[in-house]
């Protein structure tokens, strides 16, 4: 009886230790990279629809068009490199949106008819697209 109780206690301890090590071994879920304000995001969506970014890009939140000439922008917050080339940072993204060929020579995406402020809002909207 006694040995059986001790056995149970040992098993419980091992399980507890194991569980705690599993928990502590886990990192936090991947953090949202940037958390833009709702106002900036909604201004960004207006600019996206006005400019017709959907002609080439699938963008969650834009029902139509969902063009496929360019890459889908779903989950853009988690994308590593902008256009496979540039670190995904807000300043660079806004500059890329406005004048892609200036930043990535050879890009199919031409300069876009948006202001600096609009480009920043569009970047905010894209950083609100999070797949995790």
């Amino acid at each position, binding site marked *: 009886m006694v040995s059986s109780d001790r056995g149970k206690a040992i098993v419980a301890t091992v399980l507890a230790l194991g569980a705690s090590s599993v928990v502590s071994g886990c990192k936090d879920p991947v953090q949202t990279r940037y958390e833009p304000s709702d106002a900036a995001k909604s201004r960004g969506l*207006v600019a996206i*629809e*006005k400019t017709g970014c959907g*002609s080439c890009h699938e963008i969650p939140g834009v029902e139509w068009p969902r063009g*496929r*000439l360019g890459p889908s922008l779903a989950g853009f917050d988690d994308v590593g490199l902008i256009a496979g080339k540039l670190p995904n940072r807000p300043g660079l993204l806004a500059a890329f949106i406005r004048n892609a060929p200036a930043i990535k020579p050879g890009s*199919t995406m*031409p*300069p876009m*008819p948006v202001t600096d402020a609009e480009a920043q809002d569009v970047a905010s909207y894209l950083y609100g697209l999070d797949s995790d």
Partner: protein
Amino acid sequence: MIEAVWGWPPPVLDPAGPYSAQVTTLSWALFALGVFVTGVVVVALWVAIKGPPNWKANLGGERAIWIGGVAFPGVVLTALLIWGLTLTASLTEPIRGDEMRIRVTGEMWWFRVEYLDPDGAVMMVDANEIHIPVDTPVVLELESADVIHSFWVPHLSGKKDMIPGRRTLLRIEADRAGEFGGVCAEYCGGQHALMGFIAVVHEPAAWQSWLADRMDTLANAAEPVAQESQRYPGDADLYPTEAEYLERYDARRGYDLFMETGCAACHRIAGSEANGLAGPDLTHIASRRSLGAGILPNHRGTLIGWIGDSQSIKPGNRMPSYDRLSAEDLGHIAAFLELQK
């Protein structure tokens, strides 16, 4: 999405001319009458279910049927018919024959536009957009190349069907300048919902100069279409030298590509070898408000997107996706088309 650009879908109860104003007045009268009749029915129902017994007896009596079921609708509907026909008589007035005429042909899924001179000959071709002067009645000759479409610019008039093998006439008139959206109002196939149209109404002087510009473009169109290139607004700092710019957006190269890759087989550009008639005429594409038949704003980005993969934007439309062209070639063609004002 186009709402941000010129008001989409076009509001149907905001008349901008005498013909649509009458339709709107009639609509409001019918709405009001509908509300009144619905109210009467609801009250009668309440009486029939919960009303005092003597009210119920009256409601179910022969007299109520003679008054409410025969006399009232007879008088109201007759009056409404006479008033409605009188109000909208001008919609069906005979065409005088001296009005400005524009022929609009419905195609799956866009509108071919031909401006006619006083003799009825085509003097200018465009697509998905008409320009008219304010306060001037304009007669539209509506035709169809394939299935039944319906022409509707709610600000300017009622709907009129475009029927294959037949020509229908619709008179429109605007009493204020502006840009008014239109749609195909008769289901015509998969992309019916993406068959849009814009009517641009100019002040008389502006319209005259617009027409003179167009005629000037056509008169000079016999010269080579793209000898020079033109920098896109905003490109100034991007390409410090002309050579660098041309490497990316060379209209001359775009012209050659346009002729070589098949664009010219379906699209016409006046004065060039491009003489295809299957698709929209591109002689003035750069001055249009929209691409893809009233559905996309018109700038270099949407142009490249449309040429490169129009099937993802408007699936089933007759233009194949040119996704076999390189990024550079798409840029060259877009630069060439941007010169076609």
